[in-house]
């Protein structure tokens, strides 16, 4: 199939004269209207668009291509640039957010300044949204293309700004995704700072007893990785630390961190535990989900990294009773306790950032009909992990919280806080992806421990897509786990013995099941973690409607963000299981390392230029620029604004505000924009 589908050249007899005159010594523009297969052509009459712009002043050639981005399509343009002496190119196709880079590179390869390219978005913003009206869509495509031509005629060649690259990276979040990303980066020779806001790395994976579908002991596979983090000389671990501020851009981010005081000197502490033995104050143990207690001086869990204790000032008597107690200080032979520690600001220079901030489990108490928080024997899937874990509150015996007796009848309820229209946040409306397999695993573990236990799973559908998942689920069925398609409306507790009555309709048989259980496990969904909104704002990355972070492209840039140099790993993007999180961590690390491997970063030169004749030194621009990208300085002509090229990000707020009209924006100049507006409105 020929790619250069049809063409109208200025040299064609019926319009050649007009056009050569129109071009004169002015711009020589090539226009390429893309069919994008049928993506555009099904709605927009591409040939009509081509013909409508072919005669415009400055247009030397107008063609339509099946796929402009294909090799053949690109070659057509490259050949035209050479043969017809084009100096500007207009491509009417998909969104510039998709292919602007592709075509700019083509320009550069063909010896043209890449900033002399202009794209008209006739796919995302035309054919795909006006499929109901071919005529209107075609007219709009003509208008958009004409506007692009008008703008292209006024474009000026620009040289890219060049920035340096700091050869180090920061990973935010020390769960399995962050740990993996840090290790991948470190093993590629990149100096990596791993920042974790909790006292230890490990994240939610450290709390799990086993992983599906292999039933590996979670910490047994995670803990060696955590040790590796500590041992790796390329990794600097900053635990108990939060990100305060991020400035700069790809290649040179400046990060400000806040280190919270542990009141323990990490370097001196050997985690002998003497202090905790003697500590008189108790607190609920959050690692065991509040089902046991820890001391005010504690280590989150035995395998914690850094292997250092930490003092919880909310419970420690030194803090709650005004400087008294200090038992731990006295007992510690190594003198590791240090009550004088204060919050500390740490600054880092890094070239790339990986966000691996994970998730937060859904707050099950919001589903009041299930009584979580009111009925002791209703627990969540995460509680279950702790209760069944050898290190947990019952030392690995599965017991129910009301009387710590062994439950004989256990129910699991799926989709608590997910696939739920009533949930107000986006993440509650969809499938959290891991809960079905978590339940399959937990139900199996119950059967493994107590083969005669009765286990029911109430589900919407069991979703078991993944390597070895279906087999695992079937094995559970054959062990006698009962899967019921149907969601119970509520749980009613018998206050005497705290047993739980669950009524549900089994959609497969149509029967009403009215059963009583000793314990009910709620399979809770995954939510964006607290603080993610603020972090996203500090980093300037976008979030999706569900509140998790938005990837660069849903298919092709899954580990990137909209900001160059900032990458995503794990559940920060969307609920994922462990292998998917690790895989994405590798992807993010590779992308980050790619940036760090180069010595210079090229940045779009969108900075403004100041006309000193017009500038009156009013300082409006200086006040409005959030980056210090423009400063008023004394010159021999008085006070004048000056652009600081590498600090400027090219937003244009100064140009739009200048009281004396002295600031001209490059690539988005008034004239260029006005030419566009006028052309857009010419076509009906």
């Amino acid at each position, binding site marked *: 199939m020929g790619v250069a589908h049809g063409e109208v050249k200025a040299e064609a007899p019926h319009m050649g004269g007009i056009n050569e005159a129109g071009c004169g010594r002015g711009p020589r523009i090539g226009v390429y209207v893309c069919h994008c297969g049928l993506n555009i052509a099904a709605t927009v009459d591409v040939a009509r668009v081509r013909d409508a712009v072919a005669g415009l002043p400055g247009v030397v050639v107008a063609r339509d291509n099946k796929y402009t981005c294909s090799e053949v399509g690109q070659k057509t343009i490259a050949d035209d640039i050479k043969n017809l002496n084009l100096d500007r190119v207009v491509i009417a196709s998909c969104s510039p957010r998709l292919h602007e880079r592709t075509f700019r590179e083509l320009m550069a390869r063909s010896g043209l300044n890449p900033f002399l390219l202009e794209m008209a978005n006739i796919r995302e913003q035309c054919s795909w949204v006006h499929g109901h009206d071919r005529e209107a869509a075609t007219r709009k495509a003509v208008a958009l293309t004409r506007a692009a031509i008008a703008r292209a005629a006024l474009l000026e060649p620009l040289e890219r700004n060049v920035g340096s690259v700091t050869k180090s990276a920061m990973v935010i979040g020390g769960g399995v995704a962050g740990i993996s990303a840090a290790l991948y980066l470190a093993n590629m020779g990149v100096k990596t700072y791993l920042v974790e806001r909790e006292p230890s790395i490990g994240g939610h994976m450290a709390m799990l007893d086993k992983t599906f579908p292999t039933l590996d002991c979670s910490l047994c596979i995670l803990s060696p990785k955590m040790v590796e983090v500590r041992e790796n000389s390329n990794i600097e671990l900053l635990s108990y630390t939060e990100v305060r501020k991020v400035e700069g851009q790809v290649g040179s981010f400046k990060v400000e961190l806040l280190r919270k005081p542990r009141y323990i000197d990490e370097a001196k502490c050997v985690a002998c535990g003497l202090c905790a033995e003697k500590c008189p104050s108790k607190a609920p143990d959050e690692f065991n989900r509040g089902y046991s207690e820890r001391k005010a001086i504690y280590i989150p869990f035995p395998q914690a990294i850094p292997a250092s204790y930490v003092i919880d000032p909310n419970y420690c008597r030194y803090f709650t009773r005004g400087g008294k107690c200090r038992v731990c200080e006295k007992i510690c032979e190594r003198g590791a306790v240090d009550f004088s520690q204060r919050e500390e600001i740490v600054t880092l220079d890094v070239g790339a950032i990986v966000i691996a901030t994970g998730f937060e489990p859904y707050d099950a108490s919001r589903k009041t009909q299930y009584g979580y928080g009111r009925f002791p024997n209703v627990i969540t899937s995460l509680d279950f992990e702790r209760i069944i874990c050898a290190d947990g509150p019952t030392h690995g015996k599965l017991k129910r919280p009301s009387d710590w007796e062994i439950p004989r009848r256990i129910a699991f309820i799926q989709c608590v806080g997910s696939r739920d229209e009533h949930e107000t946040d986006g993440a509650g409306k969809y499938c959290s992806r891991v809960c079905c397999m978590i339940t399959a695993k937990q139900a199996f573990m119950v059967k493994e421990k107590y083969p005669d236990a009765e286990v029911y799973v109430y589900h919407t559908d069991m979703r078991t897509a993944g390597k070895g998942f279906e087999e695992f689920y079937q094995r559970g069925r054959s062990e006698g786990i009962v899967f019921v398609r149907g969601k119970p409306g509520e749980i009613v507790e018998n206050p005497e013995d705290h047993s739980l009555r669950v009524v549900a309709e089994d959609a497969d048989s149509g029967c009403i099941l009215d059963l009583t259980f000793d314990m009910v496990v709620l399979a809770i969904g995954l939510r964006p973690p607290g603080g993610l909104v603020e972090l996203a704002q500090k980093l300037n990355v976008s979030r999706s409607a569900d509140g998790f972070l938005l990837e660069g492209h849903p298919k092709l840039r899954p580990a990137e963000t909209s900001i160059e140099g900032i990458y995503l790993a794990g559940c920060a993007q969307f609920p994922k299981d462990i292998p998917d999180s690790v895989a994405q961590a590798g992807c993010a690390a590779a992308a980050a390392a790619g940036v760090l491997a180069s010595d210079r970063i090229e940045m779009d030169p969108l900075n403004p230029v100041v006309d000193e004749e017009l500038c009156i030194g009013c300082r409006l621009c200086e006040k409005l620029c959030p980056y210090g990208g423009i400063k008023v300085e004394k010159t021999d002509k008085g006070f004048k604004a000056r652009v600081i090229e590498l600090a400027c990000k090219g937003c244009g*707020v100064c140009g739009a505000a200048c009281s004396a009209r002295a600031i001209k924006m490059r690539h988005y100049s008034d004239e260029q924009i006005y030419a566009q507006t006028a052309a857009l409105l010419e076509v009906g």
Partner: protein
Amino acid sequence: MESETFEPKIVAFLCNWCSYAGADLAGTSRLYYPANVRAIRVMCSGRVDPAMMIRPFIDGADGVLVLGCHFGDCHYLTGNYQTDQRVRIVWEVLRQVGVDPGRLHLDWVSAAEGARFAEIVEEFCNRMRHMGPLQASLPSGPLPYDLPLALAIAAEIVEGERFRWLLGRLRELREQGSVYGERIDAARLEQLVRDVIAEEYVRAGVQVLAAREPLSVKDMASKLGLAARDVLKQVAYLKKRGVLDIYDVRQQSPRYQSTTRIGVDDLG
């Protein structure tokens, strides 16, 4: 009958990072909306100059949309706060010259809000259909002039140095008060904005009229719906600055003409 078939022309300024991405998402999700809206991509909504909000009307638009990131989400941190101030002040300018400010709409669309984008466009388009063509709508209020003149005056008002300076400082004034640390209360600030616009209206009106044809103070005053002494004050001032000159004297009253061509090109 006209209003039933009327299809408004709408120009939308979209910032690259949120609203343009949101518009793209509407495309990827195949959400249909009216083809009346045609977008111009800018890096940030903060790039959209007040003059840029007025220009499309002069070029024949019936409505103008400015869409940026939600507060706190602007890729350049605070650009959209500036946009917010600007749109509000341009509404005042439009009101001053008699154009319905409802024809300029500001909204926020994130990169994830494809559906919201489609909704906003649809709604605005319906509103414009309802309002009818701008060119046919006479400026509301008691003003005796025509629409091109009204728009030319609006465009000239927002070029005023004093106007632009005040606009640039508005947010700061609102939040931090003046350099002397005194907080200016909102009502006083609104009044200040209206006063400046009213004064700039006289200046811009005189300048635009005098660029069209030589006119006496009395003629200008009646065309602008103003008192002759207010116009005279401006004329005297502009003459001192060399922007106006006496063209001739008729029946003892001088007719003035502008020395520059400000605004005249916009009249088409």
